[in-house]
């Protein structure tokens, strides 16, 4: 299947309040096509909520519940189980809709993590999508648990001291039916993963890397280019796992196996204005070496993890 073969039905209508070049909206557009019409969405406070349109208007065609920030896991799990009850009792007829969440890294890594971990452990029946733009972009770029080390934000003005959490891995180790990472630069890989997840039941987690032109400071036309560089440099890894059994996806697979060297990370960092300070920093060499070492360690770790 090629991108031209995707359904021409649009689930995101023109007129969203999202920034030009918004990665979240591109991702949701692809996901809508993969999930189809029988789907219900839950969202927590984020750019997607802020840009979907104000009451009584919306640019999203699917039914969406805007729940509280820490609530994604429990609300989606509860909604899905309640639907099971209503369909079993014959109060609703037909096919149960797919329940999915559309939640940022704040709602996944930070405030929503407890509820999400609970839902994964219980194997609640929904797909959690984390659109990871590596900061609280909606409130004007504050650090989150997903913000990479050294990145300055309005609440880490001299650069974040500690590295980011690896929530996809933490989710993997809950051993739910499905966990996957994805990138907008590989839309058919994303589409395939959503289609696959849609056919499964239980807890499914898909995290999409979402370069944000506004907070990462790159031109709106370069969202896909930056997404691709993240994958090519090994800064974002593509993989999927069923019940904890891990498979690395192309093109990350050749980096993990050592067949191919990752592109030098400067190419990725130089595409983003949020790293401009690095090129003037006396610690440039030390920081770059640390970033590359971290990439190498992650690739090695994933290589070992595939053998479990």
């Amino acid at each position: 299947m090629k991108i031209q073969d995707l359904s021409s039905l649009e689930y995101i209508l023109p007129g969203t309040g999202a920034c030009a070049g918004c990665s979240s909206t591109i991702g949701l557009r692809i996901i809508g096509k993969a999930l189809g019409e029988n789907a219900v969405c839950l969202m927590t406070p984020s750019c997607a909520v802020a840009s979907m349109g104000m009451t009584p208007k919306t640019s999203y065609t699917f039914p969406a519940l805007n729940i509280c920030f820490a609530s994604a896991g429990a609300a989606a799990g509860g909604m899905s189980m309640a639907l099971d009850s209503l369909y079993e009792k014959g109060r609703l007829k037909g096919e149960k809709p797919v329940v999915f969440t559309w939640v940022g890294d704040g709602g996944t890594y930070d405030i929503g993590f407890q509820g999400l971990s609970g839902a994964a452990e219980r194997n609640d029946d929904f797909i959690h999508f984390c659109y990871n733009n590596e900061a609280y972009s909606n409130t004007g770029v504050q650090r989150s648990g997903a913000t990479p080390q050294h990145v300055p934000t309005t609440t880490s003005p001299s650069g974040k001291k500690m590295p980011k959490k690896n929530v996809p891995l933490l989710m993997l180790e809950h051993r739910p039916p499905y966990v996957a990472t994805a990138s907008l630069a590989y839309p058919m890989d994303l589409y395939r993963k959503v289609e696959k997840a849609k056919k499964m039941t239980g807890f499914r987690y898909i995290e999409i890397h979402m370069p944000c032109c506004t907070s990462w400071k790159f031109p709106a036309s370069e969202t896909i280019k930056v997404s691709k560089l993240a994958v090519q440099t090994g800064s974002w890894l593509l993989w999927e796992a069923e019940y904890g059994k891990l498979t690395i996806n192309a093109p990350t697979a050749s980096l993990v196996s050592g067949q191919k060297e990752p592109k030098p990370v400067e190419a990725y960092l130089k595409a983003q204005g949020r790293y401009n300070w690095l090129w003037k920093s006396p610690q440039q060499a030390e920081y770059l070496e640390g970033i590359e070492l971290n990439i190498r360690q992650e690739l090695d770790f994933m290589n070992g993890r595939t053998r479990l």
Partner: protein
Amino acid sequence: MTKIFDTGNAACALAVKAANVDFVAAYPITPQTSVVEKIASYVANGEMQAKYLSVESEHSAASAVAAASAVGARVFTATSSQGLLYMHEILHYSAGGRLSMVMTNVNRAVCAPWCLYVDHQDAISQRDTGWIQFFAASNQEIYDMILLAYKVTEEVNIPVMVNYDGFLVSHSSMPFDTLEQNLVDKFLPPYEPSWRLHPKWGGTFGNVTPSAEYVPFRTSLNADMKRTGQVFLDFSKEYEKLSGHLQSGHFEVYRPEGATHFLLSMGSMGKEMELAVDTLRKQGIPAAGLRLRIFRPFPEEALNSILPSGAKLLVFDRNMVYGSMGGVLLQEAKASLFDRKDSIRVTGISLGLGGEDLPASLLVNKAKEMMEVLK
């Protein structure tokens, strides 16, 4: 009708089972625990055709039932004390979102310091969330109020909290009558909401809303909350006719004949107050008991109509509003009676906090102290 001898928590669980609830999410906390244990066992052994989600916190319990209500399920959760405080955000959300929900709150003191015993600080801290609040004082009243709560919430689309005192009521066994299932089903037909969060209905829920559109959401919630006082009375009448279980309205009034002094309280203290009233009457003081059964909306008109001209109202609060004259009931009562042109006198105290024992003899002494204040 079946006569049962069991605890308040058992009465609650039996009523939830009878109400044909579709979905339950809960997190255990003392003294609520046996409510959710019993419901979990009903679901597990097939006595109750519902789904039960064992969530990892009260915030998640409230989130799960709110989202379940949005797809049109009849839902239930239960908590106490810190659990209710932890739900606070979702209480606002679900009332604002006009979600039909029923929750039991087994009243317990809040920390610090930790305390397992009853007072009403947990519930009164949720006064302004937009939830309807009932207060039951016996196991029969718990059973009846749970069924009434579903009837009310599905009529006004405002969630209902049914409160009763931790341990004193939750763990006390008393006789109560259940209702035949066909009568419950007649009173509570399956929930058919006007709208569901579902592709067949469409639409989004809870979007960002500009001020001009936000205001009507709030004013309509307030209008329907005010309407709920009458809705509660109407459904109480309907329930009484169907079940034969006597329903006493907004207040249970004890020995009002010729009374000049009215002793207002809520929860189990209101039952003990009947003994205090008997003692005062024996001593020649024309006292009456007023036990509040619906705290939100506050039945301002009913209070005014019960109190005759020149009445003295003595308010016993099992809660405290720090830095004020006393408790919440005192404030509500004073505000409700402020416009009276006749000479109503009101005073009150906070007592019974953290499960402090309240025997009738103590209530008599406190009443007499308050009478001195009003002399």
